[in-house]
């Protein structure tokens, strides 16, 4: 029997029943590989449900650092008879299937290696409590895998000790469960698996975390004091991360009082309304939501845009439209955020591609929002937000100061003859703000979403209103100067073909570009990190005859945005679209591009390719 033999390059998948405690064991396994020094990208593929339905956990380990999702499974841990058929079908020839052989099965695949571990029987023999038996099955297979793949068992022992710190009673039985699996494999499964993990140092200076954890932390570092939110998958954990870090870092030691406010609102309308109210008062405030929440918030977003109130909105995108696929990923809210709300509105978007950028863009967003006095979207997605990524450590420059933008102090007001809230003094379209309570006689004005003049007075004079709208546009057009610039994969352009991508697609991109290069199809690549687009984006488009635009949505939303915002020829764009809710793969991107370049077939879409 052929056995896939691989060191530090493989995909392992766990098929479980949700609510069975598998997620933490699977995460522990991923972390075990990470601590062995090998970059990993665990992906939790879960149902919108609490208990009883199939759930999967995929881990790609790659010493080359290729961390995009990869179709085809090298090693399957099949724990859910409900999904056996589909799980077994996914295994690559020569791959491995580990299953609970307490109930033996014939999987009718001659080309894979079956590894039998009687997980249930082992647990029944060792543990009395039925619930414990169920939970510990997961650790038993982690133990078996540790032996099979040569992962140092001390790493797992330490992980168990860390996980149950404070609940010491649980440490011993968990270690016991792990060791049951390890010993069983050592006794019965010698040489069963040729996929191995060799200790390395590739994860030195790296962390394993998810974008929502990073985003919440970034809000703490960015000086956010108010988080108002409404629970919605996949954004909830960002708000919870903010709270977790505030509890550690923002409680006054002397008084025990909070230097933050954390309010679960009654709905998304209230959550954005509160964030706007707090920012109006000069407290940095944000809300976190996903597509349906954005739809509900749009009236308020227009108010903040028109009344020029800073506010930061995290959109952790999920599969749409409507309720859509709440637990799957997409990049399908580009347009609904860029142009959120009625009337002429345009919004600044920051588009992070990994947890490190989630941290940075989150902290930056408050400066940018204060500077521009407008809503800022941080457009992440479920893949970045909820899955752990191997990424560089966070860092912070202690000399950095918050940029509060143009806010007038009492002294400023004392030294001014006249002031207009919406007066463009500096020629950049950005007016000066005052905060309530600053000065006893000066600087009060009426904030409103109705048409107003430079002095914030209600007007119905169309010309004055048009003048104000034009000024706001001017402000928007200069916004790119404050935003993260695009990232280029090459130092100088070398191809007439360009590729544009953004967000979580980054995970698959290097592998894809390497595949294209080795097929003799090198291509220049640019990652967009913000909207409005700056000159570098337009130059890149100008400099290439053909632009492949890779997006994880059906309607090529980024292309629509580019075409509507710049004077570019729409004909030069070829869209590579993946919108099945799974993170895009390198093979999908490179095969799509290779097909087009070799056949000159320009009508590719995800549907046709898949």
């Amino acid at each position: 029997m052929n056995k896939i033999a691989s060191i530090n390059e493989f995909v392992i998948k766990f098929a479980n029943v949700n609510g069975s405690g598998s997620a933490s064991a699977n995460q522990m396994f991923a972390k075990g590989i990470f601590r062995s020094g090998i970059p990993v990208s665990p992906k939790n593929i879960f149902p919108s449900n609490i208990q009883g339905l199939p759930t999967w956990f995929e881990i790609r380990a790659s010493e080359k650092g290729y961390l995009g999702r990869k179709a085809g499974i090298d090693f399957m841990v099949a724990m859910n008879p409900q999904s056996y058929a589909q799980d077994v079908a996914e295994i690559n020839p020569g791959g491995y299937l580990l299953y609970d052989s307490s109930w033996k099965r014939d999987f009718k695949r001659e080309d894979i290696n079956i590894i039998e571990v009687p997980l249930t029987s082992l647990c029944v023999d060792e543990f009395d409590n039925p619930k414990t038996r169920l939970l510990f099955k997961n650790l038993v297979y982690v133990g078996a895998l540790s032996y099979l793949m040569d992962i140092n068992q001390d790493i797992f022992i330490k992980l168990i000790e860390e996980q149950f710190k404070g609940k010491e009673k649980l440490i011993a039985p968990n270690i016991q469960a792990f060791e049951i699996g390890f010993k069983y494999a050592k006794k019965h499964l010698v040489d069963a698996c040729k996929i191995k993990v060799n200790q390395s140092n590739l994860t030195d200076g790296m962390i394993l975390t998810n974008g929502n954890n990073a985003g919440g932390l970034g809000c703490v570092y960015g000086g956010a004091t108010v988080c108002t939110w409404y629970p919605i998958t996949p954004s909830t954990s960002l708000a919870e991360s903010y709270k977790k870090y505030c509890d550690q870092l923002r409680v006054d030691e002397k008084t025990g009082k909070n230097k933050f406010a954390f309010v679960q609102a009654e709905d998304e309308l209230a959550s954005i309304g509160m964030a706007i109210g707090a920012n109006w008062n000069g407290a940095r405030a944000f809300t976190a939501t996903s597509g349906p929440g954005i739809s509900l918030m749009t009236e308020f977003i227009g108010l903040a845009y028109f009344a020029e109130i800073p506010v930061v909105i995290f959109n952790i995108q999920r599969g749409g439209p409507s309720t859509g696929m709440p637990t799957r990923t997409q990049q399908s809210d580009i347009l609904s955020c860029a142009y959120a709300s009625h009337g002429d509105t345009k919004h600044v978007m920051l588009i992070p591609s990994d947890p490190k950028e989630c941290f940075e863009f989150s902290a930056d967003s408050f400066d940018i929002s204060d500077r521009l006095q407008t809503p800022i979207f941080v457009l992440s997605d479920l893949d970045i937000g909820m899955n752990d990524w191997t990424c560089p450590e966070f860092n912070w420059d202690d000399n950095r100061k918050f940029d509060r933008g143009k806010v007038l102090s009492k002294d400023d007001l004392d030294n001014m003859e006249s002031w207009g809230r919406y007066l463009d003094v500096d020629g950049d379209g950005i007016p000066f703000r005052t905060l309530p309570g600053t000065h006893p006689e000066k600087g009060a004005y009426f904030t409103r979403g109705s048409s107003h003049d430079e002095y914030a007075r209600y007007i119905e004079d169309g010309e004055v209103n048009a003048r104000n709208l034009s000024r706001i546009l001017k402000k928007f057009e200069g916004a790119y100067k404050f935003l993260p610039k695009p990232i280029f994969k090459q130092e100088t352009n070398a191809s007439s073909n360009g590729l544009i991508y953004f967000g979580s697609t980054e995970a698959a991109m290097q592998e894809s570009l390497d595949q294209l290069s080795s097929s003799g199809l090198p291509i220049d690549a640019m990652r967009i990190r913000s909207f409005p687009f700056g000159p570098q984006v337009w130059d890149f488009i100008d400099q290439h005859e053909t632009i492949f635009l890779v997006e994880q949505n059906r309607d090529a939303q980024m292309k629509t945005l580019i075409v509507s915002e710049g004077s570019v020829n729409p004909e030069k764009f070829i869209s590579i679209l993946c919108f099945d809710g799974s993170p895009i793969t390198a093979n999908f991107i490179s095969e799509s591009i290779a097909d087009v370049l070799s056949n000159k077939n320009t009508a590719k879409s995800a549907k046709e390719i898949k």
Partner: protein
Amino acid sequence: MTYIVKPANHHPNLEKNKLGLTRRDYEGTISTLCAGCGHDSISAAVIEACYDLSLSSDQIAKLSGIGCSSKSPSYFLNQAHGFNSVHGRMPSVATGANLGNKDLLYLGVSGDGDTASIGIGQFMHAARRQLNITYIVENNGTYGLTKGQFSATNDQGSKSKYGEINTLSPIDLPTMAIQLGAGFVGRSFSGDKDQLVPLLKAAMKFKGFSLIDIISPCVTFNNHVGSTKSYDHIREHNESISSLDFVPIGQEIKTNYAAGTKVDVPLHDGEMLTLEKLSKQYNPLDKGQAIQSLNEAEKNGKVLTGLLYINPDVKDHIEILNISDTPLNQLTENELCPGSKKLNKINASLN
């Protein structure tokens, strides 16, 4: 053009309050509401209350939603920051503003459409959170700005200007607010300044959610025979259950209420509310009784006014959330940004 500045000139000998300010200093721009609108009397009462309490306008934030009522914050307190938000959403904006700076005094001005229909969810949750706000509902039972549709507070059987009879039962905002745990609930009538001004003063001094539902007739769309929110109807059916005096700290309590009818309610900072019960049985500290009385009055076609319910022991939203004594908008980088050393520790916890 509906922004009309009032001339600043005034008589040199106008009476001044403790801050040396005259009533004129508390005014806003000239009202563009219909002549005789109840809302303008409420604006005048707000001016009177702020003047009497010697409040600094710059320490007040006035917020509103959308509708005729929500225009009225322009017509008082020129030196206060104002926020005319979106329809029915003033409570959330005020909640956020309060989180950002707990030290300002928040005056929310809303209407019956803004509060009892589109904004009823936010209203209820603001009451439930004990947002520290004086929440004024200028209640006229009709949508004035869109020309006379029934609102959700309009009484069943009441007739519209166009002869249509309202078939739906009304929402009673004070009853709802009491049930939701609001700490201070009153009702008044725009035409009864003597009752309204002390009620407003007490509400502004109360720490927690204070609702004042003010029946404020719409002269254009809901002041006809057959309407239960007309000046005539309210004058005939108003049943005042208490009269109120607000006694600032350190000031002697001088009321000439008959013995046995007086109730003193101490407020947070040592100030005192003195209440004369016009109905001997009525106890405004009793939640159950307040709700029962409101239900009975409604059944009898009466409009119960005065301080309906007060719970001086409530904790406001800021206290519930244990927020720092320094308002959040005044915390600096040093207090907010944990710095690189702590970040390195966090990095260490993630590898």
